[in-house]
């Protein structure tokens, strides 16, 4: 990389052949490079998933539109959901975790570098396999290409009878294989965090991102696996004549739902937990205060990890479970909102009494706080089962979860990008472009997702390729689609910023933000070995202790 090579006047630096560079990247086991591979992979699929969303929004600009056929539209929402969850959100979060966790805990690499690389390539291959379905999906009866069964792939729609051809199999096998990659990375992260912390860093001194990563990884172990089990059962049904979900033979469609959502709900907590970690690192630095209530934040995170495993059937309030079962899932779903709310209050408490600096990472973090609050509250609405009987499977739910995923996760990710890009590349991202990106994205986000709640309230279900005129949905859908285009422009500005700043950005130095965790104690980008000698620490903010020897945290630890 450019920053690795020192410039000596009068010396011609030989640029290495690109084949050699490519080979290095393909065979790397360095956690930092693997992290960047994950992030780059996710960005490519973010654009692809965004194109799929754009196609849908064009089709839904007005009622009875004919931009794409129903078959294509159904593939679009299936691929959009599957792509964004498994090939954008998971990889980008694993990418950041890969890059940052060893640095933050004062280690030289992950516990198992080769497993790390293997997990990445497994995930990468599975994404390509999923997209190969566009070309190769016309199987046995020449039916369909990309999967079109929705990203939940409900039974019995996925049975051979209703989904002939191979499109569903591409979904099943790709996500299954990618899941194994995720499990590998989760094992690696847990082993790294538990077994490779530098001296002095007992668990109560780890950065919150490390805590949230270990909880998230523990969740991955026990939630990706039920999905894998269900997918194996689906393959048995489709290819070995099994009857797991064969309602004609006494199999249960609801059983797939249970197994899927036992994965599906904790999955969204898996996605948000690292984002809580990003916010918990960024807000303190830009408020110039330590995180408010570190032990409570840890406890709340662990509590969320556990309780989120008990809420899954709130996705199934309409399938006809008994009133007692419904009530159980109401209380657990509302309960999980409590530690989540506490976290918001703690971030607020961090900002309170601080000295807030409105650099781009903080702008995205503040927007995250507002938006995640709203998302959580619409979640509470949906947790009230009878309210959900009306709102479930409508555009209100689509608005809610996009509020969490875009308004929460993506905003936190943008904050993370602006905050740690200097560490990864040695250059600052442009603040001006950052602010354009931020404001355009905020406007587009709210235009789309605030408005989107309304068609849901007015009875518009999700996963429909067109809708009837005269139901009052047309204008709202038009606004939603316009907001999507604005978000697209903002993303393009962001991508341009990423690329242009690599060459033209201001040099960052070790610690451009005056931060306090160990990754800022080494160069930007760090050398392959991370630290010349492994740090020994005495508090949660080792760099604060160094910079403020008169009032170190270690005094209070």
């Amino acid at each position, binding site marked *: 990389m450019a920053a690795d090579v020192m410039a000596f006047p009068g010396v011609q630096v030989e640029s290495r052949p690109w084949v050699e560079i490519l080979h290095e990247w393909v065979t790397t086991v360095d956690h930092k490079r693997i992290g960047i591979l994950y992030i780059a992979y996710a960005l490519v699929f973010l654009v692809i998933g965004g194109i799929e969303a754009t196609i849908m929004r064009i089709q839904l600009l007005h009622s009875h539109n004919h931009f794409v*056929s*129903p078959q294509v539209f*159904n593939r679009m929402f299936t691929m959009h959901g599957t792509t964004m969850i498994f090939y954008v959100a998971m990889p980008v979060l694993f990418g950041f975790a890969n890059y940052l966790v060893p640095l933050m805990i004062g280690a030289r690499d992950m516990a198992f570098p080769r497993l790390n690389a293997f997990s990445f390539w497994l995930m990468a291959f599975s994404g390509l396999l999923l997209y190969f379905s566009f070309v190769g999906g016309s199987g046995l009866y020449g039916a369909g290409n990309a999967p*079109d069964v929705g990203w939940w792939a409900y039974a*019995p*729609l996925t049975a051979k009878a209703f989904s002939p051809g191979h499109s569903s199999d591409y979904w099943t096998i790709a996500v299954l294989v990618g899941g194994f990659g995720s499990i590998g990375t989760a094992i690696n992260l847990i082993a790294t965090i538990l077994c490779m912390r530098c001296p002095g860093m007992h668990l109560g001194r780890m950065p919150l991102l490390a805590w949230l990563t270990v909880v998230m990884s523990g969740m991955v172990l026990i939630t990706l696996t039920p999905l894998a089990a269900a997918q194996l059962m689906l393959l048995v049904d489709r290819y070995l004549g099994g009857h797991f979900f064969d309602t*004609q033979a006494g*199999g*249960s*469609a609801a059983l797939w739902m249970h197994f899927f959502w036992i994965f599906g709900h904790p999955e969204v907590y898996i996605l948000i937990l690292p984002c809580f970690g990003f916010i918990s690192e960024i807000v303190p630095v830009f408020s*110039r*205060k330590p995180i*408010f*209530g*570190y*032990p*409570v934040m840890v406890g709340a995170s662990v509590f969320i990890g556990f309780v989120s495993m008990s809420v899954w059937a709130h996705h199934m309030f*309409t399938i*006809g479970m008994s*009133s007692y079962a*419904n*009530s159980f899932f*109401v209380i657990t779903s*509302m309960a999980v*909102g*409590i530690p989540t709310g*506490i976290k*918001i*209050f703690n971030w*607020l*408490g961090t*900002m309170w*009494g601080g*000295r*807030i600096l409105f650099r781009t990472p903080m702008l995205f973090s503040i927007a995250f706080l507002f938006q995640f*609050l*709203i998302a959580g*509250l619409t979640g*509470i609405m949906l947790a*009230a*089962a*009878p*309210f*959900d*009987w*009306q709102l*479930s*499977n409508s555009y209100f739910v689509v608005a809610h979860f996009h509020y969490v995923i875009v308004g929460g996760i993506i905003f936190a990710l943008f904050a993370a990008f602006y905050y740690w890009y200097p560490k990864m590349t040695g250059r600052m991202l442009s603040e001006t472009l950052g602010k354009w990106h931020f404001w355009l994205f905020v406007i587009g986000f709210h235009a789309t997702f605030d408005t989107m709640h309304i068609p849901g*309230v*007015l*009875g518009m*279900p999700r*996963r*429909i390729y067109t809708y*009837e005129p*005269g139901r*009052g949905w047309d204008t709202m859908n038009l606004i939603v689609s316009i907001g999507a285009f604005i978000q697209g422009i903002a993303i393009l500005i962001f991508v341009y910023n990423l690329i242009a700043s690599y060459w033209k950005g201001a040099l960052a130095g070790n610690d451009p933000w005056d931060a306090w965790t160990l990754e800022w104690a080494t160069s930007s980008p760090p050398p392959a070995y991370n630290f010349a000698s492994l740090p020994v620490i005495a508090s949660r903010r080792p760099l604060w202790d160094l910079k*403020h020897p008169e*009032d170190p*945290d270690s005094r209070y630890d």
Partner: protein
Amino acid sequence: MAASCAERVAAQPSIFAPESTPARTIFGLSMFVLAITGLIFVVVFVLLVYAILRFRGRAGDRGREPAQVYGSTQIELAWTVVPVLIVVVLFIATARVIHAVQDAPKPVSALDVTVIGHQFWWEFRYPKLGIVTANELHIPVSDPGRPAPTFLKLLSADTDHSFWVPRLAGKTDLIPDRVNEMWIDPNHAGLYVGQCAQYCGTQHAKMLLRVYVDAQPDFDAWVRAQSQPAIQDGRVAAGRRIFETTACINCHAVRGTPADGRFGPDLTHMMSRVTIASGAALNTHENLRLWVQSPDAIKPGSLMPAMNLSDGDLSAVVAYLETLK
């Protein structure tokens, strides 16, 4: 009958304009939940905005770090206890409504309708009245003083579906090999629209619902008309012969004739319906002809095959169908 049905303007769907007890009960709960979550939002929003404004970094204090506060047990306790209390209150309110709607006893005066979801149409059977129809549900209005609710038994012939008419009730899914139940008791006559709310395949979007709530006399008249076997009109014998000797009768039923297929909608009184193809098109001559000739032109991906009839045969069949009033 068809003319007066067509005249009725569909009330735009909205979960906040309930016309039936389940929808109304849910509406009450949702207002309560909205009020509480709205209050929480206002409080936290104000605090956030205040914090951003009050504690923003000013040029003057560069280099001076604010007081490094690590936390406060009392504050943590306070903002834990309050949410717990809110959750308890919300849960109790919610549980009461769940029981009120799901465990409501079924009065003797209830009308029974069995709803069977198909890819991509609705079958309605009235077991005690001996009627079978499709896509457009007729039920009597229910006077709050003398309730006459309709209890729906929900089944599926293939994949998952969901019955959702927002003004009348929350949705309930139709799941193969499972029997679900829901009930509605609309207080005002009118037309209420909805559609399938669980993705069921290619034409999920066009599995539309029209619920005609009739005043009791109108409903009785409708029942009487639907109970009759199909009208026999000698003038369309040619079309009827084509209908009964090609594959049409494998899927469709016309009561009083040899046609008794169950895969597609019952056509005995299809001309009493305002729409065809489960709401995808109005029941006009042009649409009907196009539908029979090439279903994919109206509903691409529907499971009705194009029969490749010659023009003459097509006209004859359509003429026959148009006598099934």
